[in-house]
């Protein structure tokens, strides 16, 4: 099967999956108790029937259920993600406003964890049984098992409060009005803690995965053959072991990449990072249906997209794999 056929097949499937997800999301959200009008009125500490009625009409909740579903789907077919009455903004604007911050955070965490994790895993495999291996595997196990929010808060207390090295929350220094390079550096300074915190878990995961996978491959017959032929040790590890051991890591990276949009809720919350994850979480507790559905949709589209990309990367990493639709 050639590449074009493969892609076409996957895209058609992807669109169908997205449609099903969109409908399911709508039904699931409506199954949760409460509605946005009631929440908004409840937060105000005072309400009467007339206010609730006015708000429900604004949210379009006075329409029959199927009409609401139809309006929602019709909007999505024309790339209109709807309007959030609560925030007085089109959903697409709200998402686009938050997307750069999230991509910066998750992208940085993704790169750091992929590079550091794979390297650490490879190093540990090479030194299996030695003390450097023990340190790496112990650390990897510890970070793999520690809850993210705990690391997040502890890192704030240690690095921001006690040592004063980095700011504890936020995206940039509020009120400083930096521009250009100064602003980029300021944002990078704010990015350090959240990106490392978010990246730690995946770093640990990659390290463990890479180590296990390399040790498995290192015992394979073709590696013994290579050694017997007199191929140099570094070359065996690089060309024969590492290349064959990377596939599970690619799978994992594909999964992590799929979460680039929606996977940082906790980190964004603890570090007050103005990203999509918080937009989604706030929308959830406020039952701001249109925003929630919009974020869900973009996140699902990312997952579907990255699954296709992962399959393509498989073909590059291991040409023996025939991508099949």
């Amino acid at each position, binding site marked *: 099967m050639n590449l074009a056929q493969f892609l076409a097949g996957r895209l058609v499937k992807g669109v169908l999956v997205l449609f099903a997800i969109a409908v399911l999301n709508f039904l699931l959200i409506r199954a949760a108790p409460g509605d946005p009008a*009631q929440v908004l009125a409840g937060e105000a500490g*005072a309400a009467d029937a007339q206010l609730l009625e006015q708000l429900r009409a604004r949210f379009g909740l006075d329409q029959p259920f199927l009409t609401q579903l139809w309006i929602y789907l019709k909007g999505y077919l024309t790339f209109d993600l709807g309007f959030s009455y609560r925030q007085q903004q089109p959903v697409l604007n709200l998402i686009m*406003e938050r997307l750069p911050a999230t991509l910066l955070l998750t992208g940085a965490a993704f790169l750091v964890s992929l590079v550091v994790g794979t390297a650490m895993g490879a190093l540990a495999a090479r030194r299996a049984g030695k003390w450097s291996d023990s340190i790496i595997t112990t650390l990897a196990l510890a970070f793999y098992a520690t809850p993210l929010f705990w690391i997040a808060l502890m890192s704030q*207390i240690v690095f921001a409060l006690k040592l*004063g090295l980095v*700011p*504890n929350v936020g995206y940039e220094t509020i009120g400083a009005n930096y521009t250009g390079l100064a602003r980029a550096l300021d944002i990078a300074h704010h990015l350090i803690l959240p990106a490392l915190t978010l990246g730690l878990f995946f770093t640990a995961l990659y390290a463990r995965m890479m180590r296990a996978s390399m040790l498995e491959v290192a015992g394979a017959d073709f590696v013994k053959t290579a050694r017997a032929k007199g191929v140099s040790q570094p070359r065996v590890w690089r060309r024969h072991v590492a290349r064959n051991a990377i596939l599970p890591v690619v799978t994992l990276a594909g999964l992590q990449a799929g979460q680039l949009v929606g996977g940082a809720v906790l980190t964004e919350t603890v570090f007050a990072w103005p990203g999509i994850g918080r*937009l989604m979480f706030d929308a959830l*507790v406020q039952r701001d249906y249109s925003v929630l559905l919009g974020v869900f949709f973009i996140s699902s589209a990312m997952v579907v997209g990255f699954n296709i990309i992962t399959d393509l990367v498989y073909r590059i990493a291991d040409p023996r794999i025939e991508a099949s639709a």
Partner: protein
Amino acid sequence: MMARVTGLRLSLALAASIFALGAAVAQEPKKGGTVHVVVQPEPPMLMQGLNQNGPTNMVAGNIYESLLRYNEKLEPQPSLAKSWEISPDAKVYTFKLQEGVKWHDGKPFTADDVVFTLDKFLRDVHPRWRPIVNAQVEKIEKVDDLTVKITLKQPFGPMVMTQEVASAPMIPKHIYDGTDYRANPANNTPIGTGPFKLKEWKKGSYIHLVKNEDYWLKGKPNLDEIYWQIIPDAAARAVAYETGKVDVLTGGSVDVYDVARLSKLPNTCMTTKGWEMFAPHAWLTPNVRNGILGNKQFRQGLMYAIDREFGKDVVWGGLGKLPTGPISSKTKFYSDDVPKYTYDPAKAKELIKASGYKGETIRLLNLPYGETWSRWSESIKQNLEDVGVKVQIENTDVPGWTQKASNWDFDLNFNFLYQLGDPAMGVARSYISSNIAKGNPFANVGGYSNPEVDKLFADAAIAPTDKERQELYTKVQKVLADELPVLWLLEMDFPTIYRCNVKNLVTTGVGVNDGFRDAWKE
């Protein structure tokens, strides 16, 4: 120097003396400066006429203004109204407006705006002003450009308390008249008359307010800028204060157990003032429709069984005060001439036995506002099980709670309500039978109904003098404290923690909500 508060158990008397000390050594305000304040959660919008959420009020109360403002004793003070007169029959209120007031877009503020706001805009959209204007007000008229006359159907004592900025913010007629209010694009760019203007709202990060250079009160405000920072995690907010990122932690923005620690930091002041208008009152609502909860003896038994002191001292870290009845001791018309309940498990057992309780499980609906409330639920469950009452705690999220509370789906429900400056506005609503309606968690959701109480509240609202009102309210407090339609647990305190070099921050009955007009930074 203002005295630094080190103790947590801050008595009202102590707070009063510190305030007096602060006033005695008042300095000349310094001009300029920026203050960073925490606001939590992020407000949904800043158009205060359309939304009165707590965080909205904190920010927007410095953008919008109302006819009056209220000091910490809840006495009315001039704001957009320079002066006001009440006719001898207490039915006509005449407000004289300040001269030279401009909206943030430069248009003049006149009596037309006041009439539009009170008679049209808020009557249509404001859930607290609507019932008042519909039931009490005969007409609202412009006398001249700077005079407005409100004629009542009958004397209504609380009228003078209705003009707080969240209750009646003045809305620009030239922007809203004839439009669909809730769809007006101007809702994103609020235009008020207040001391600060909205410069930028970076969603998820901060709200930036800047000084209104054309503010009508010459020389005010002192500050140049306010940044309201949005930091969703309570522990991270505390660290942000400690690292100097923010200067003010507004009421309720840090965990109760952090208050004592943060208050002891250098250059840190703490006050529980600035909440007098709201005077939040926390309680458990028994659903009197549900079997044994309709029995007065059983409810009294519950009240004796609950260790309310423990709730205040341990769960709430010593903040607040035990209430004696429906009216907060911080507001007018409070009376302590009522039956009192102490922690007395033996007496509780007796009453519960006499009530005919047969071991039914009581569902306790927890208020999902964080750790403190969950602990309170657990301690009360233990208190009640000690006297043989079976309790099952129900947990849900905020929308789930709102729905269950609104639709009467509970046996016992936690809640806390604002008193809003007068029992006719903030208290009666929880006890009168005409307010038994589904769909609103702040209505009379327990379903208590007593014609005597209905009549006392109705008469007290329109009794012509304060003395007559007091007599009726004293009576109703006595009846309610005996009948216990709700179990009052705590007069809550929400401490504001701030750097001591931010001066004059809390000077009114709504604290930071309108406090930045006079605040300055040393």
